[in-house]
C-alpha cells in the first residue's frame, strides 16, 4: 500500500473549437487495476482515451488542459508512438490488421524479429531478413499470455471477427513494456463465448500487473471484471464507485439521467396513434453498411407521424434509412402505401416520393461547389421535372432560372439560411446552414415520407432548434411522415411521437417519446 498510482489524470479539459467536451476529469489507476468506463455516445470517453494515447487529432485541435502523470512522471505524448513507448497500448474499435497477413505477422507488425543479411550493412537494417522461427515463438508467447487460443498461421482475412479482435489484443500483449491497456468496446463484435474468454483474459492481465481501462456498453461485463466503474455524461465524470457496491440499474441511471426536473419541454407521453393507418412497413430488413450493420429489422411507420430511431453508435440505426434508400446493399421487403419498393435502387425510392437527408452532409447531401439555387432545386429538377420550361412538347427542356431563384429565396427566408445570396456556393456556408440547405433540398421534393439522419450532428445550438422546428412544422403543415434518426435521445424525445431503439442491428423496442429515460437506457443496452 501507499504505492504511487500507475496513472493519474488531473483536471483534464478539452474543447473542440470552443465546444467543451471534457470538463475537469480526474482519474487514477493503480498497477493491475481494471476499471470500466461507460457513458452514452458523446459523453467524452473516446476523447479522454485519445488524450491519454496521444492521438494526432487532439494536438491538431489545440491540445488539452490538465496533467497526465504516468509512474510519477508528468508526460505529454506527441504521438501514439510516444504513448506506446511508455507502455500504453490501445485496441481500437476498428480493426487495424493487414488482411493478407497471418496472425503472427499481424501481432508483430513492424516489430518483426530480424536476422542480419549481407546487404543490411550496405543499405539499412530494412534489408535484414525476417526470422520466422523467432517470430512464431514470440507470437505464441503473446497468445499464451492472452489465454485465448487462436491459430497463429491463419490469414487474418479468413478469421472470424472474434479472432481478429484477439489478434489485436495479442499484438498489444507482445509489447514487452506494456503497463496499461485500453480496450475500446472490444466485446461489441464478439459472441458470448468469445466475450467470456476475453473477460477471463482481462483478469489474467490484471494478475500480471497490467492495468486495463475497459470501455463497453455491456454493463454486465463491467460488473463481472472491473474493480471500479467510472460513468461519464456530457463531458463530466458523474460517478465513480467500486463495482461491488453498484448495479446495472444504477449505472444505467447515471448514464442517461439528465436533470429531469428542470426540463419544461412538452413530451408526447402517450401512444395516441395506434389506430392510424400504417403507411410504410419494413420487414426482415438487413443492410450491409460498414459499422452500422442492420439485422432482421421489422418496423411499421404510421401516416403523418414523426418516428424517431435512436440507439448507440455502431448499433445500426444509421443503416436503416441508408438501406431503405438504396445507398448500401440491403435485403428484405419494404412496402409503402401497399406498393412494394425495390431495394438497392435509390431512383425508385425517390420516384415513390421518399426523400432523404443524409448524415453525410458533405459527401451525399450537397453539391459543394455549386450554388444554393442548384443545390435546392437539383433533385426536384432531376426526379420530378420541376423548375423546367418545356419546348416542342417536352423534347427540349430548359432550366427555369426564375422559378429556381424564387424557390431558393423562399427557403432561405423560411429556414433563415445565412448566406450572401442564393448564388453563393454551398461549401462556403457553415455546418448549420449547410444542414438547412439539405433540408430545403428535401422539402423542395415535397415528399410523402422523409428520412432525416442525424440532422443536428455538428451544428450549433441555435441552428439545432431551428432545424428541429422546421421538421416539426413541415410534418404538421404538409402532413409529411418523418423518420428521424439521431444519436441524441433528448432531441428525439422533444421532436418525435414514438421512438424505436436499435441495438445490435435490431429494433429492441418502440416507446412513446415521453417514456422514462431509464426505459430507453435499458433498450439501448439490450442486445449490444
Amino acid at each position: 500500500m501507499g504505492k504511487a498510482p500507475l496513472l493519474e489524470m488531473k483536471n483534464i479539459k478539452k474543447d473542440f473549437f470552443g465546444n467543451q467536451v471534457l470538463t475537469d476529469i480526474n482519474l487514477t489507476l493503480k498497477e493491475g487495476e481494471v476499471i470500466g468506463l461507460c457513458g452514452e455516445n458523446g459523453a467524452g470517453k473516446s476523447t479522454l482515451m485519445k488524450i491519454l494515447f496521444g492521438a494526432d487529432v487532439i494536438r491538431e485541435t489545440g491540445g488539452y488542459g490538465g496533467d497526465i502523470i504516468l509512474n510519477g512522471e508528468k508526460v505529454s505524448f506527441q504521438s501514439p508512438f510516444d504513448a506506446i513507448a511508455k507502455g500504453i497500448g490501445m485496441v481500437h474499435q476498428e480493426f487495424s490488421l493487414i488482411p493478407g497477413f497471418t496472425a503472427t505477422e499481424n501481432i508483430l507488425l513492424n516489430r518483426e524479429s530480424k536476422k542480419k543479411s549481407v546487404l543490411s550493412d550496405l543499405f539499412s537494417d530494412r534489408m535484414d531478413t525476417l526470422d520466422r522461427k523467432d517470430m512464431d515463438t514470440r507470437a505464441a508467447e503473446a497468445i499464451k499470455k492472452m489465454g485465448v487460443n487462436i491459430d497463429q498461421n491463419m490469414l487474418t482475412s479468413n478469421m472470424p471477427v472474434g479472432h481478429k479482435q484477439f489478434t489485436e489484443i495479442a499484438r498489444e500483449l507482445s509489447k514487452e513494456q506494456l503497463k496499461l491497456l485500453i480496450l475500446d468496446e472490444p466485446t461489441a463484435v464478439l459472441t458470448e463465448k468469445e466475450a467470456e474468454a476475453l473477460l477471463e483474459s482481462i483478469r489474467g492481465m490484471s494478475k500480471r500487473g497490467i492495468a486495463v481501462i475497459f470501455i463497453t456498453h455491456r454493463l454486465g461485463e463491467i460488473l463481472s471484471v472491473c474493480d471500479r466503474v467510472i460513468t461519464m455524461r456530457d463531458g463530466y465524470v458523474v460517478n465513480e464507485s467500486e463495482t461491488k457496491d453498484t448495479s446495472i440499474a444504477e449505472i444505467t441511471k447515471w448514464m442517461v439521467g439528465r436533470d429531469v426536473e428542470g426540463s419544461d419541454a412538452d413530451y408526447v407521453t402517450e401512444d395516441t396513434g395506434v389506430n392510424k393507418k400504417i403507411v410504410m412497413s419494413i420487414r426482415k430488413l438487413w443492410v450491409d453498411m460498414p459499422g452500422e450493420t442492420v439485422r432482421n429489422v421489422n418496423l411499421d411507420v404510421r401516416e403523418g407521424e414523426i418516428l424517431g430511431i435512436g440507439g448507440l453508435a455502431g448499433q445500426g440505426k444509421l443503416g436503416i434509412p441508408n438501406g431503405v434508400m438504396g445507398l448500401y446493399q440491403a435485403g428484405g421487403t419494404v412496402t409503402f402505401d401497399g406498393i412494394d419498393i425495390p431495394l438497392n435502387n435509390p431512383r425508385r425510392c425517390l420516384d415513390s416520393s421518399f426523400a432523404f437527408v443524409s448524415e453525410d452532409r458533405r459527401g451525399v447531401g450537397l453539391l459543394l461547389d455549386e450554388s444554393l439555387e442548384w443545390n435546392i432545386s437539383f433533385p426536384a429538377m432531376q426526379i420530378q421535372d420541376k423548375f423546367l420550361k418545356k419546348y416542342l412538347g417536352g423534347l427540349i427542356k430548359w432550366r427555369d432560372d426564375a422559378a429556381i431563384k424564387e424557390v431558393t429565396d423562399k427557403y432561405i427566408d423560411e429556414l433563415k439560411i445565412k448566406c450572401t445570396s442564393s448564388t453563393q456556393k454551398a461549401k462556403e456556408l457553415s455546418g448549420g446552414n449547410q444542414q438547412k440547405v439539405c433540408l430545403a433540398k428535401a422539402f423542395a421534393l415535397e415528399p410523402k415520407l422523409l428520412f432525416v439522419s442525424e440532422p443536428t450532428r455538428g451544428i450549433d445550438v441555435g441552428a439545432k432548434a431551428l432545424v428541429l422546428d422546421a421538421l416539426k412544422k413541415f410534418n404538421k403543415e404538409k402532413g409529411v411522415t418523418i423518420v428521424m434518426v439521431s444519436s441524441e435521445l433528448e432531441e428525439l424525445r422533444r421532436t418525435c411521437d414514438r421512438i424505436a431503439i436499435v441495438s445490435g442491428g435490431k429494433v429492441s423496442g418502440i416507446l412513446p417519446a415521453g417514456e422514462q429515460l431509464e426505459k430507453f437506457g435499458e433498450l439501448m443496452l439490450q442486445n449490444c
Partner: protein
Amino acid sequence: MSNKNIGDYLRRFSVPIMFVIICAVCAPISGLSPSYLANEIVTRMGRNAFLILSLLIPIMAGMGLNFSMTLGAMAGEIGLILVCDWQIVGIPGMVLAMIISIPISALLGLFCGKVLNMAKGREMITSYIISFFINGIYQLVVLYLMGPVIPIKHSTIKLPRGYGVRNTVSLLSMRQKLDNLIPLSIAGVKIPVATFIIVFILCLVIIWFRKTKLGQDMRAVGQDMEVAKDAGIDVERTRIISMVLSTVFAGIGMIIYLQNMGNIATYSSHSQIGMFCIAALLVGGASVDKASIGNVFLGIILFHTMFIVAPKAGTVITGDSMIGEYFRVFVSYAVITVALIMYETNKRKNKSRASAQLALEQEEEVNG
C-alpha cells in the same frame, strides 16, 4: 464445395486458359515447325524475362501495374547510346551502359514515386501519363541535347544535321554478346545460358527480397496503407523505394532486351515495351494486386507463342500479313482492359459476398 472451387479457379485463370486455346488453334494453322517455335520462345524468354520481373515489386507494394517502367527503359537506352558512341564493345559495354543507366533510372523512379504518393489510389493512370511526360523529356535530350551539350562524336549515331541521334542506332558490337557468352544448344534450340543465369539471379533476389523486413513492409503497405502507417511503417518512403527498384530493374532489363535485338529504335523502342510487358504478365495469370514469378514465365510463353503464331496463322487464313500484326496489338490492349475490369468486378464481388453472408445469417436466425 469443390465445384465452387473449380469455378473460382476457372475465373481466376480465365485469361491464361483463353491464351492456351488461341495458341492451340493457331499453332497448327500457322504451319511453323516445333523446333522453330521452341527456338523463338526461348529467345524471347531471355529477351523479356528481366523486364517483366521488374514489374513484380510495385505490385507487391500495392501500386498496381507499373506503366512507368518505360522510364527505366529510356534510361537504359541513353546508357546504350552513350556507350555506343564511346565505342566500348561487348560485355564491358553492356556493363558500362547499365552503370550509366542506374543513376538515371533511380532519379526517374524517385520522381515517379513522389508523384505517385500524391496520387494514391490512382497509381496506374498516373504512371501511364508520367511515361508520356518523361518521353517528351527523353526526346528533348536525344534529339537536341545530344550533340551540343552531351558530346556525340560518331556520324553513324549522329543525325546528318550535326546534332541529335539517328532513328536507329546499331548495336552490332554487342549484339547477342550476352546470349552467346556461354554457347549451348539442345536439340537445335539455342539457349542463351548467360542471360538465363542473370534472370535466375534476379528471381532469387526477388524471392529473398520478399523475406526481408523491407519486403514485409511493402506487403503491409500494399494491403493497407493506413494500418501500416499506424504501425509506424514509413509508407511514403516504402512506396518510393519500390518504384526506384522497379525502374532500375527495368533499365537493366531494357539493356538485355536491346542486346538481343541488336539495334535501338531510338524514338520507339521504349514506347510499347511497358504495354507488352504488362500484357505478358497478365496473360500469365497475374492481376493488379497479385503476381508471382510463375506468372512471369507462363505469361512469356503464352503471350509470345501467340505473337509468333497469330501473324502466320492470319496470313495463312486471309492471305494478308497485316492482319496478324493488327491482331497482336489489339490483343495486348484487350488483355490489359480485361484484367482491369476483372480487378474491379472482383472487388465488387467480394463486397456483395459480405452482403450475402449477412442475408444468410439472418435467414438461419429466423428459421432456427
